[in-house]
Protein backbone atom coordinates (compact mmCIF):
# COMPACT_ATOMS: atom_id res chain seq x y z
CA UNK A 1 0.00 0.00 0.00
CA UNK A 2 1.33 3.40 -0.97
CA UNK A 3 1.04 6.09 1.63
CA UNK A 4 0.09 9.48 0.23
CA UNK A 5 1.20 12.65 2.02
CA UNK A 6 -2.42 13.78 2.38
CA UNK A 7 -3.20 10.52 4.16
CA UNK A 8 -0.37 11.06 6.56
CA UNK A 9 -1.63 14.54 7.32
CA UNK A 10 -5.18 13.35 7.86
CA UNK A 11 -3.84 10.61 10.06
CA UNK A 12 -1.90 12.94 12.34
CA UNK A 13 -4.88 15.25 12.47
CA UNK A 14 -7.27 12.59 13.68
CA UNK A 15 -4.81 11.01 16.06
CA UNK A 16 -4.00 14.31 17.64
CA UNK A 17 -7.63 15.21 18.04
CA UNK A 18 -8.23 11.83 19.64
CA UNK A 19 -5.53 12.57 22.23
CA UNK A 20 -6.91 16.07 22.65
CA UNK A 21 -10.38 14.69 23.19
CA UNK A 22 -9.19 12.18 25.73
CA UNK A 23 -6.97 14.41 27.84
CA UNK A 24 -8.94 17.41 29.03
CA UNK A 25 -9.50 19.24 32.28
CA UNK A 26 -11.44 16.26 33.66
CA UNK A 27 -8.41 14.03 33.22
CA UNK A 28 -5.89 16.54 34.46
CA UNK A 29 -7.89 16.86 37.68
CA UNK A 30 -9.18 13.32 38.17
CA UNK A 31 -5.93 11.49 37.31
CA UNK A 32 -3.85 13.57 39.71
CA UNK A 33 -6.46 13.24 42.47
CA UNK A 34 -6.68 9.49 41.97
CA UNK A 35 -2.92 9.00 41.72
CA UNK A 36 -2.32 10.85 44.99
CA UNK A 37 -4.93 8.84 46.89
CA UNK A 38 -5.03 5.43 45.25
CA UNK A 39 -1.75 5.16 43.33
CA UNK A 40 -2.27 3.07 40.23
CA UNK A 41 -5.01 0.99 41.79
CA UNK A 42 -7.57 2.57 39.45
CA UNK A 43 -5.39 2.32 36.32
CA UNK A 44 -7.55 -0.63 35.20
CA UNK A 45 -10.48 1.78 34.92
CA UNK A 46 -8.48 3.81 32.40
CA UNK A 47 -7.78 0.59 30.51
CA UNK A 48 -11.50 -0.16 30.35
CA UNK A 49 -12.35 3.44 29.41
CA UNK A 50 -9.85 3.38 26.53
CA UNK A 51 -11.30 0.18 25.10
CA UNK A 52 -14.89 1.40 25.55
CA UNK A 53 -14.38 4.80 23.95
CA UNK A 54 -12.34 3.25 21.12
CA UNK A 55 -15.20 0.90 20.36
CA UNK A 56 -17.85 3.63 20.35
CA UNK A 57 -15.73 6.26 18.59
CA UNK A 58 -14.97 3.74 15.85
CA UNK A 59 -18.62 2.70 15.63
CA UNK A 60 -19.98 6.25 15.46
CA UNK A 61 -17.34 7.29 12.91
CA UNK A 62 -18.13 4.17 10.82
CA UNK A 63 -21.82 5.13 10.91
CA UNK A 64 -20.83 8.64 9.81
CA UNK A 65 -18.74 7.26 6.91
CA UNK A 66 -21.61 5.12 5.70
CA UNK A 67 -24.61 7.37 6.25
CA UNK A 68 -22.88 10.79 6.23
CA UNK A 69 -24.84 11.45 9.38
CA UNK A 70 -23.21 11.92 12.79
CA UNK A 71 -24.18 9.95 15.86
CA UNK A 72 -26.58 12.32 17.59
CA UNK A 73 -28.39 12.95 14.33
CA UNK A 74 -29.44 9.30 14.23
CA UNK A 75 -30.59 9.14 17.84
CA UNK A 76 -33.66 11.14 16.95
CA UNK A 77 -34.70 9.36 13.77
CA UNK A 78 -34.07 6.04 15.48
CA UNK A 79 -35.46 6.47 18.98
CA UNK A 80 -37.90 9.32 18.50
CA UNK A 81 -37.90 12.98 19.54
CA UNK A 82 -38.72 12.33 23.22
CA UNK A 83 -35.73 10.10 23.96
CA UNK A 84 -33.44 12.35 21.96
CA UNK A 85 -34.73 15.45 23.76
CA UNK A 86 -33.82 13.88 27.12
CA UNK A 87 -30.35 13.11 25.82
CA UNK A 88 -30.06 16.59 24.33
CA UNK A 89 -30.94 18.40 27.57
CA UNK A 90 -28.70 16.15 29.67
CA UNK A 91 -25.67 16.36 27.44
CA UNK A 92 -26.20 20.09 26.88
CA UNK A 93 -26.07 20.80 30.63
CA UNK A 94 -23.08 18.55 31.28
CA UNK A 95 -21.09 19.79 28.31
CA UNK A 96 -21.88 23.41 29.21
CA UNK A 97 -20.39 22.80 32.68
CA UNK A 98 -17.36 21.24 31.00
CA UNK A 99 -16.89 24.29 28.76
CA UNK A 100 -16.66 26.42 31.89
CA UNK A 101 -14.16 24.00 33.43
CA UNK A 102 -12.02 23.78 30.28
CA UNK A 103 -12.00 27.56 29.92
CA UNK A 104 -10.85 27.86 33.53
CA UNK A 105 -8.21 25.24 32.70
CA UNK A 106 -6.75 27.47 29.96
CA UNK A 107 -6.74 30.37 32.42
CA UNK A 108 -5.12 28.28 35.18
CA UNK A 109 -2.35 27.17 32.81
CA UNK A 110 -1.76 30.84 31.96
CA UNK A 111 -1.75 31.73 35.67
CA UNK A 112 0.91 29.10 36.38
CA UNK A 113 3.02 30.47 33.54
CA UNK A 114 2.58 34.15 34.36
CA UNK A 115 1.69 34.51 38.03
CA UNK A 116 -1.35 36.63 37.10
CA UNK A 117 -4.56 35.40 38.75
CA UNK A 118 -6.59 33.04 36.55
CA UNK A 119 -9.79 35.09 36.75
CA UNK A 120 -8.03 37.83 34.79
CA UNK A 121 -7.13 35.30 32.11
CA UNK A 122 -10.66 33.89 31.74
CA UNK A 123 -12.07 36.74 29.57
CA UNK A 124 -8.88 36.88 27.49
CA UNK A 125 -9.02 33.13 26.90
CA UNK A 126 -12.71 33.46 25.94
CA UNK A 127 -11.94 36.17 23.39
CA UNK A 128 -9.16 34.08 21.82
CA UNK A 129 -11.46 31.05 21.67
CA UNK A 130 -14.13 33.18 20.01
CA UNK A 131 -11.74 34.50 17.37
CA UNK A 132 -10.59 30.95 16.62
CA UNK A 133 -14.20 29.77 16.24
CA UNK A 134 -15.14 32.76 14.14
CA UNK A 135 -12.28 33.04 11.76
CA UNK A 136 -9.50 30.46 11.86
CA UNK A 137 -9.68 27.44 9.58
CA UNK A 138 -10.56 24.64 11.93
CA UNK A 139 -8.19 22.03 10.55
CA UNK A 140 -5.21 24.32 11.09
CA UNK A 141 -6.30 25.09 14.64
CA UNK A 142 -6.85 21.45 15.41
CA UNK A 143 -3.39 20.63 14.11
CA UNK A 144 -1.76 23.36 16.18
CA UNK A 145 -3.34 22.39 19.48
CA UNK A 146 -2.93 18.71 18.67
CA UNK A 147 0.79 19.11 18.07
CA UNK A 148 1.21 21.27 21.18
CA UNK A 149 -0.77 18.65 23.08
CA UNK A 150 2.06 16.20 22.42
CA UNK A 151 3.94 18.22 25.05
CA UNK A 152 1.87 16.19 27.53
CA UNK A 153 4.27 13.31 26.81
CA UNK A 154 6.55 15.07 29.29
CA UNK A 155 4.48 13.32 31.99
CA UNK A 156 5.64 9.96 30.64
CA UNK A 157 9.26 11.15 30.69
CA UNK A 158 8.77 12.40 34.24
CA UNK A 159 7.77 8.90 35.43
CA UNK A 160 11.28 7.67 34.45
CA UNK A 161 13.04 10.68 35.89
CA UNK A 162 11.41 10.19 39.27
CA UNK A 163 13.26 6.84 39.39
CA UNK A 164 10.33 4.84 40.66
CA UNK A 165 10.37 1.46 42.30
CA UNK A 166 8.89 -0.33 39.27
CA UNK A 167 7.78 -3.39 41.22
CA UNK A 168 5.81 -1.14 43.56
CA UNK A 169 4.14 0.60 40.59
CA UNK A 170 3.30 -2.78 39.10
CA UNK A 171 1.93 -4.09 42.41
CA UNK A 172 -0.24 -0.99 42.72
CA UNK A 173 -1.49 -1.27 39.15
CA UNK A 174 -2.50 -4.90 39.63
CA UNK A 175 -4.42 -4.39 42.89
CA UNK A 176 -8.16 -3.84 42.75
CA UNK A 177 -8.90 -2.52 46.23
CA UNK A 178 -8.70 0.81 48.05
CA UNK A 179 -5.41 1.80 49.67
CA UNK A 180 -5.28 1.60 53.48
CA UNK A 181 -7.23 4.38 55.14
CA UNK A 182 -9.53 4.71 52.12
CA UNK A 183 -13.04 3.27 51.92
CA UNK A 184 -14.59 1.15 49.19
CA UNK A 185 -17.26 3.77 48.40
CA UNK A 186 -14.55 6.41 47.86
CA UNK A 187 -12.59 3.98 45.68
CA UNK A 188 -15.67 3.23 43.60
CA UNK A 189 -16.62 6.89 43.44
CA UNK A 190 -13.27 7.71 41.88
CA UNK A 191 -13.64 4.76 39.51
CA UNK A 192 -16.91 6.38 38.34
CA UNK A 193 -15.17 9.76 38.10
CA UNK A 194 -12.45 8.31 35.87
CA UNK A 195 -15.02 6.66 33.63
CA UNK A 196 -16.85 9.99 33.35
CA UNK A 197 -13.64 11.90 32.65
CA UNK A 198 -12.32 9.47 30.06
CA UNK A 199 -15.38 8.12 28.24
CA UNK A 200 -17.03 11.45 27.52
CA UNK A 201 -19.87 11.32 24.99
CA UNK A 202 -18.67 14.60 23.46
CA UNK A 203 -15.56 12.80 22.19
CA UNK A 204 -17.83 10.47 20.25
CA UNK A 205 -20.09 13.25 18.92
CA UNK A 206 -17.10 15.34 18.00
CA UNK A 207 -15.26 12.52 16.30
CA UNK A 208 -18.27 11.47 14.22
CA UNK A 209 -19.32 15.02 13.35
CA UNK A 210 -15.71 15.66 12.36
CA UNK A 211 -15.83 12.60 10.12
CA UNK A 212 -18.89 14.03 8.38
CA UNK A 213 -17.37 17.47 8.03
CA UNK A 214 -14.06 16.13 6.71
CA UNK A 215 -16.18 14.28 4.14
CA UNK A 216 -14.73 10.92 5.04
CA UNK A 217 -16.16 8.11 2.94
CA UNK A 218 -16.18 4.32 3.34
CA UNK A 219 -12.80 4.22 1.57
CA UNK A 220 -11.35 6.18 4.52
CA UNK A 221 -12.23 3.35 6.91
CA UNK A 222 -8.62 2.25 7.43
CA UNK A 223 -7.45 5.78 8.07
CA UNK A 224 -10.24 6.33 10.60
CA UNK A 225 -9.41 3.08 12.40
CA UNK A 226 -5.71 3.89 12.56
CA UNK A 227 -6.66 7.19 14.21
CA UNK A 228 -8.74 5.39 16.81
CA UNK A 229 -6.17 2.67 17.45
CA UNK A 230 -3.29 5.11 17.98
CA UNK A 231 -5.06 8.17 19.37
CA UNK A 232 -7.09 6.83 22.27
CA UNK A 233 -4.47 4.43 23.74
CA UNK A 234 -1.95 7.28 23.60
CA UNK A 235 -4.46 9.38 25.56
CA UNK A 236 -4.82 6.49 28.03
CA UNK A 237 -1.04 6.25 28.40
CA UNK A 238 -0.86 9.94 29.26
CA UNK A 239 -3.67 9.51 31.79
CA UNK A 240 -1.86 6.66 33.53
CA UNK A 241 1.38 8.68 33.50
CA UNK A 242 -0.39 11.55 35.28
CA UNK A 243 -1.70 9.07 37.85
CA UNK A 244 1.79 7.58 38.25
CA UNK A 245 3.65 10.85 38.85
CA UNK A 246 0.99 11.98 41.34
CA UNK A 247 1.37 8.63 43.11
CA UNK A 248 5.18 8.92 43.26
CA UNK A 249 5.18 12.48 44.61
CA UNK A 250 2.03 12.88 46.72
CA UNK A 251 1.06 9.43 48.00
CA UNK A 252 3.74 8.82 50.65
CA UNK A 253 3.55 12.29 52.26
CA UNK A 254 -0.27 11.95 52.15
CA UNK A 255 -0.81 15.16 50.18
CA UNK A 256 -4.26 15.65 48.64
CA UNK A 257 -4.52 17.20 45.20
CA UNK A 258 -6.74 20.27 45.34
CA UNK A 259 -5.34 22.51 42.64
CA UNK A 260 -4.32 22.04 39.04
CA UNK A 261 -0.81 23.33 39.88
CA UNK A 262 -0.37 20.04 41.74
CA UNK A 263 -1.00 18.13 38.52
CA UNK A 264 2.12 19.64 36.96
CA UNK A 265 4.23 19.88 40.16
CA UNK A 266 5.65 16.33 39.85
CA UNK A 267 6.94 17.22 36.38
CA UNK A 268 8.69 20.28 37.81
CA UNK A 269 10.26 18.11 40.52
CA UNK A 270 11.45 15.55 38.00
CA UNK A 271 12.55 17.74 35.10
CA UNK A 272 12.94 21.23 36.50
CA UNK A 273 11.83 24.47 34.90
CA UNK A 274 12.04 23.26 31.32
CA UNK A 275 9.87 20.28 32.15
CA UNK A 276 7.34 22.51 33.87
CA UNK A 277 7.22 24.83 30.87
CA UNK A 278 6.61 21.92 28.51
CA UNK A 279 3.92 20.52 30.81
CA UNK A 280 2.19 23.90 30.90
CA UNK A 281 2.21 24.08 27.11
CA UNK A 282 0.62 20.64 27.12
CA UNK A 283 -2.03 21.63 29.68
CA UNK A 284 -2.78 24.80 27.74
CA UNK A 285 -3.13 22.92 24.46
CA UNK A 286 -5.25 20.14 25.96
CA UNK A 287 -7.69 22.51 27.67
CA UNK A 288 -7.80 24.86 24.68
CA UNK A 289 -8.57 21.98 22.34
CA UNK A 290 -11.14 20.60 24.75
CA UNK A 291 -12.82 24.02 25.06
CA UNK A 292 -13.32 24.07 21.30
CA UNK A 293 -14.46 20.44 21.24
CA UNK A 294 -16.98 20.81 24.07
CA UNK A 295 -18.34 24.04 22.59
CA UNK A 296 -18.76 22.50 19.15
CA UNK A 297 -20.18 19.26 20.54
CA UNK A 298 -22.89 21.24 22.32
CA UNK A 299 -23.68 23.18 19.15
CA UNK A 300 -23.74 19.96 17.13
CA UNK A 301 -26.16 18.31 19.59
CA UNK A 302 -28.65 21.13 19.30
CA UNK A 303 -28.25 21.71 15.56
CA UNK A 304 -28.56 18.03 14.72
CA UNK A 305 -31.63 17.58 16.89
CA UNK A 306 -33.48 20.37 15.09
CA UNK A 307 -31.87 19.76 11.70
CA UNK A 308 -30.14 23.15 11.53
CA UNK A 309 -27.18 23.90 9.32
CA UNK A 310 -24.04 23.48 11.38
CA UNK A 311 -20.37 23.38 10.89
CA UNK A 312 -16.99 24.60 11.75
CA UNK A 313 -15.96 24.47 8.09
CA UNK A 314 -18.76 26.83 7.02
CA UNK A 315 -18.49 30.59 7.35
CA UNK A 316 -20.59 31.71 10.36
CA UNK A 317 -23.26 33.31 8.16
CA UNK A 318 -24.09 29.93 6.59
CA UNK A 319 -24.98 28.42 9.97
CA UNK A 320 -26.26 31.30 12.06
CA UNK A 321 -28.31 29.38 14.63
CA UNK A 322 -25.35 27.08 15.25
CA UNK A 323 -22.89 29.96 15.52
CA UNK A 324 -25.20 31.95 17.79
CA UNK A 325 -25.70 28.96 20.11
CA UNK A 326 -21.96 28.37 20.39
CA UNK A 327 -21.23 32.06 20.99
CA UNK A 328 -23.98 32.33 23.61
CA UNK A 329 -22.69 29.26 25.40
CA UNK A 330 -19.17 30.66 25.43
CA UNK A 331 -20.46 33.89 26.95
CA UNK A 332 -22.44 31.98 29.57
CA UNK A 333 -19.44 29.80 30.47
CA UNK A 334 -17.23 32.86 30.81
CA UNK A 335 -19.76 34.40 33.19
CA UNK A 336 -19.98 31.16 35.15
CA UNK A 337 -16.18 30.94 35.40
CA UNK A 338 -16.04 34.52 36.66
CA UNK A 339 -18.36 33.71 39.57
CA UNK A 340 -15.19 32.23 41.20
CA UNK A 341 -16.90 28.85 41.40
CA UNK A 342 -14.07 26.36 42.00
CA UNK A 343 -13.29 24.84 38.56
CA UNK A 344 -12.01 21.63 40.15
CA UNK A 345 -15.34 21.06 41.94
CA UNK A 346 -17.28 21.90 38.77
CA UNK A 347 -15.13 19.42 36.83
CA UNK A 348 -15.78 16.61 39.29
CA UNK A 349 -19.54 17.19 39.20
CA UNK A 350 -19.55 17.51 35.40
CA UNK A 351 -17.72 14.21 34.84
CA UNK A 352 -19.89 12.36 37.36
CA UNK A 353 -23.08 13.57 35.65
CA UNK A 354 -21.48 12.76 32.32
CA UNK A 355 -21.07 9.15 33.48
CA UNK A 356 -24.80 9.07 34.32
CA UNK A 357 -25.60 9.92 30.69
CA UNK A 358 -23.22 7.42 29.08
CA UNK A 359 -25.67 4.57 28.35
CA UNK A 360 -28.15 7.00 26.78
CA UNK A 361 -25.42 8.16 24.40
CA UNK A 362 -24.17 4.64 23.62
CA UNK A 363 -27.50 2.92 22.98
CA UNK A 364 -28.50 4.61 19.67
CA UNK A 365 -24.98 4.21 18.30
CA UNK A 366 -24.99 0.49 19.06
CA UNK A 367 -28.47 0.07 17.55
CA UNK A 368 -27.62 1.85 14.31
CA UNK A 369 -24.15 0.30 14.02
CA UNK A 370 -25.76 -3.11 14.22
CA UNK A 371 -28.50 -2.39 11.68
CA UNK A 372 -27.61 -4.15 8.42
CA UNK A 373 -30.38 -2.33 6.56
CA UNK A 374 -28.63 0.99 7.21
CA UNK A 375 -25.02 -0.10 7.42
CA UNK A 376 -24.82 -2.87 4.81
CA UNK A 377 -21.40 -4.52 4.82
CA UNK A 378 -20.12 -1.87 7.24
CA UNK A 379 -22.41 -3.14 10.03
CA UNK A 380 -20.85 -4.15 13.35
CA UNK A 381 -18.83 -7.32 13.39
CA UNK A 382 -18.70 -9.70 16.31
CA UNK A 383 -15.90 -7.75 18.00
CA UNK A 384 -17.74 -4.41 17.89
CA UNK A 385 -20.95 -5.98 19.14
CA UNK A 386 -19.30 -7.88 21.99
CA UNK A 387 -17.18 -4.98 23.24
CA UNK A 388 -20.01 -2.53 22.60
CA UNK A 389 -22.54 -4.58 24.57
CA UNK A 390 -20.18 -5.18 27.50
CA UNK A 391 -19.30 -1.48 27.58
CA UNK A 392 -22.99 -0.57 27.47
CA UNK A 393 -23.81 -2.94 30.35
CA UNK A 394 -20.96 -1.62 32.50
CA UNK A 395 -21.96 1.95 31.67
CA UNK A 396 -25.49 1.19 32.91
CA UNK A 397 -24.06 0.02 36.25
CA UNK A 398 -21.86 3.12 36.42
CA UNK A 399 -24.81 5.34 35.52
CA UNK A 400 -27.00 3.90 38.29
CA UNK A 401 -24.23 3.97 40.91
CA UNK A 402 -22.83 7.43 40.16
CA UNK A 403 -25.23 9.70 42.05
CA UNK A 404 -25.63 7.45 45.15
CA UNK A 405 -21.81 7.25 45.38
CA UNK A 406 -21.55 11.02 44.94
CA UNK A 407 -23.90 11.57 47.89
CA UNK A 408 -22.49 8.74 50.03
CA UNK A 409 -18.89 9.90 49.74
CA UNK A 410 -19.69 13.64 49.69
CA UNK A 411 -18.06 13.84 46.25
CA UNK A 412 -15.07 11.79 47.36
CA UNK A 413 -14.31 13.80 50.50
CA UNK A 414 -14.57 10.77 52.80
Amino acid at each position, binding site marked *: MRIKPSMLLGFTLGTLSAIGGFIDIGDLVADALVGARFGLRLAWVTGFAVIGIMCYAEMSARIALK*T*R*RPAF*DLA*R*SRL*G*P*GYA*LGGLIGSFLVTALLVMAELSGIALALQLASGVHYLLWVPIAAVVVFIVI*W*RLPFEATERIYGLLGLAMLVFVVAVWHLQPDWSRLWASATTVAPTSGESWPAYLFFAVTLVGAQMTPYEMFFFSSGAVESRWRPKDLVEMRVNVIIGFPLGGLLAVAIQAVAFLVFFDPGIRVEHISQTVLPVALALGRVGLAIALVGVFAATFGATLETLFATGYDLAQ*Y*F*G*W*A*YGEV*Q*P*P*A*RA*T*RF*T*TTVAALLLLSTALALTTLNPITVTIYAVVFSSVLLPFAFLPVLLVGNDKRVMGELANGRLSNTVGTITLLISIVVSVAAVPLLILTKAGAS
Partner: protein
Amino acid sequence: MNDHESLRFTLLDQQLVDAEDRPVGRVDDVLLDLPADGGPPVVVAVLTGAQALGERMGGPAGKLMAAVASRLRSGEHRAEPVAIPASAIGDHADLVQLTVPLGDLPHVAGLERWLAHHLVEGLPGAGDARD
Protein backbone atom coordinates in the same frame (compact mmCIF):
# COMPACT_ATOMS: atom_id res chain seq x y z
CA MET B 1 -44.16 9.58 -3.31
CA ASN B 2 -45.01 5.91 -3.21
CA ASP B 3 -48.50 4.93 -2.28
CA HIS B 4 -47.51 2.69 0.60
CA GLU B 5 -44.61 3.21 2.94
CA SER B 6 -43.85 3.53 6.62
CA LEU B 7 -43.83 7.22 7.43
CA ARG B 8 -42.17 6.46 10.74
CA PHE B 9 -39.03 5.19 9.00
CA THR B 10 -38.84 7.13 5.76
CA LEU B 11 -40.20 10.55 6.59
CA LEU B 12 -40.87 11.44 10.21
CA ASP B 13 -37.88 12.92 12.08
CA GLN B 14 -35.65 12.79 9.00
CA GLN B 15 -33.31 15.58 7.96
CA LEU B 16 -34.66 18.03 5.37
CA VAL B 17 -32.28 19.57 2.83
CA ASP B 18 -33.20 22.04 0.12
CA ALA B 19 -32.50 21.77 -3.62
CA GLU B 20 -28.96 23.06 -2.98
CA ASP B 21 -28.28 20.54 -0.20
CA ARG B 22 -28.50 23.14 2.55
CA PRO B 23 -29.91 21.74 5.81
CA VAL B 24 -33.35 23.21 6.35
CA GLY B 25 -34.65 21.42 9.42
CA ARG B 26 -36.24 18.14 10.35
CA VAL B 27 -39.55 16.61 9.34
CA ASP B 28 -41.13 17.42 12.68
CA ASP B 29 -44.63 16.35 11.78
CA VAL B 30 -46.64 15.23 8.77
CA LEU B 31 -49.99 16.54 7.57
CA LEU B 32 -52.17 13.75 6.21
CA ASP B 33 -55.36 13.78 4.24
CA LEU B 34 -57.85 10.90 4.24
CA PRO B 35 -59.34 10.53 0.77
CA ALA B 36 -63.14 10.41 0.65
CA ASP B 37 -63.09 7.12 -1.26
CA GLY B 38 -61.54 5.32 1.72
CA GLY B 39 -58.09 4.92 0.18
CA PRO B 40 -54.85 5.13 2.18
CA PRO B 41 -53.92 8.49 3.78
CA VAL B 42 -52.01 10.88 1.55
CA VAL B 43 -49.22 13.19 2.71
CA VAL B 44 -50.31 16.77 2.05
CA ALA B 45 -47.41 18.59 3.66
CA VAL B 46 -44.50 18.12 6.05
CA LEU B 47 -44.28 20.40 9.05
CA THR B 48 -40.91 21.63 10.25
CA GLY B 49 -39.67 23.70 13.17
CA ALA B 50 -39.72 23.43 16.94
CA GLN B 51 -43.33 24.64 17.03
CA ALA B 52 -44.56 21.66 15.03
CA LEU B 53 -42.35 19.31 17.05
CA GLY B 54 -43.57 20.67 20.37
CA GLU B 55 -47.19 20.32 19.33
CA ARG B 56 -46.57 16.77 18.16
CA MET B 57 -44.78 15.72 21.36
CA GLY B 58 -47.27 17.35 23.72
CA GLY B 59 -46.82 17.26 27.48
CA PRO B 60 -45.24 20.11 29.46
CA ALA B 61 -41.92 19.93 27.57
CA GLY B 62 -43.61 19.88 24.18
CA LYS B 63 -45.98 22.73 25.07
CA LEU B 64 -43.07 24.83 26.32
CA MET B 65 -41.05 24.12 23.18
CA ALA B 66 -43.99 25.03 20.92
CA ALA B 67 -44.70 28.23 22.86
CA VAL B 68 -41.06 29.40 22.75
CA ALA B 69 -40.75 28.55 19.05
CA SER B 70 -43.99 30.40 18.29
CA ARG B 71 -42.77 33.51 20.15
CA LEU B 72 -39.52 33.43 18.17
CA ARG B 73 -41.42 33.74 14.90
CA SER B 74 -42.54 36.92 13.28
CA GLY B 75 -45.43 37.81 11.01
CA GLU B 76 -49.11 36.93 11.08
CA HIS B 77 -48.59 33.21 10.37
CA ARG B 78 -47.34 32.67 13.90
CA ALA B 79 -50.23 30.48 15.04
CA GLU B 80 -49.64 27.77 12.44
CA PRO B 81 -46.54 25.55 12.31
CA VAL B 82 -44.33 25.96 9.23
CA ALA B 83 -45.55 23.66 6.45
CA ILE B 84 -43.84 22.58 3.23
CA PRO B 85 -46.28 21.27 0.60
CA ALA B 86 -45.84 17.69 -0.56
CA SER B 87 -45.26 18.98 -4.10
CA ALA B 88 -41.88 20.38 -2.96
CA ILE B 89 -40.69 17.04 -1.62
CA GLY B 90 -38.39 15.08 -3.85
CA ASP B 91 -36.20 12.09 -3.16
CA HIS B 92 -36.25 10.75 0.39
CA ALA B 93 -33.90 7.83 0.85
CA ASP B 94 -31.48 8.90 3.60
CA LEU B 95 -32.40 12.56 3.64
CA VAL B 96 -35.60 14.24 2.59
CA GLN B 97 -34.61 16.35 -0.40
CA LEU B 98 -36.73 19.33 -1.39
CA THR B 99 -37.09 20.25 -5.04
CA VAL B 100 -36.90 23.98 -4.34
CA PRO B 101 -34.18 26.17 -2.78
CA LEU B 102 -34.65 27.51 0.74
CA GLY B 103 -35.14 31.00 -0.71
CA ASP B 104 -38.49 29.92 -2.20
CA LEU B 105 -39.88 28.90 1.18
CA PRO B 106 -40.31 32.21 2.98
CA HIS B 107 -41.43 30.88 6.38
CA VAL B 108 -38.98 28.01 6.75
CA ALA B 109 -35.93 28.48 8.98
CA GLY B 110 -37.04 32.01 9.84
CA LEU B 111 -34.77 32.29 12.86
CA GLU B 112 -31.75 31.29 10.78
CA ARG B 113 -32.48 34.16 8.37
CA TRP B 114 -33.32 36.64 11.11
CA LEU B 115 -30.02 35.94 12.86
CA ALA B 116 -28.13 36.19 9.58
CA HIS B 117 -29.76 39.47 8.74
CA HIS B 118 -29.71 41.19 12.11
CA LEU B 119 -26.74 39.72 13.92
CA VAL B 120 -24.16 37.64 12.16
CA GLU B 121 -23.74 39.27 8.76
CA GLY B 122 -23.00 42.65 10.30
CA LEU B 123 -19.90 41.33 12.02
CA PRO B 124 -16.58 41.31 10.20
CA GLY B 125 -15.45 38.02 8.76
CA ALA B 126 -18.81 36.29 8.93
CA GLY B 127 -18.87 35.37 5.23
CA ASP B 128 -21.91 35.67 3.05
CA ALA B 129 -25.14 33.85 3.82
CA ARG B 130 -26.15 33.79 0.17
CA ASP B 131 -23.23 31.98 -1.40
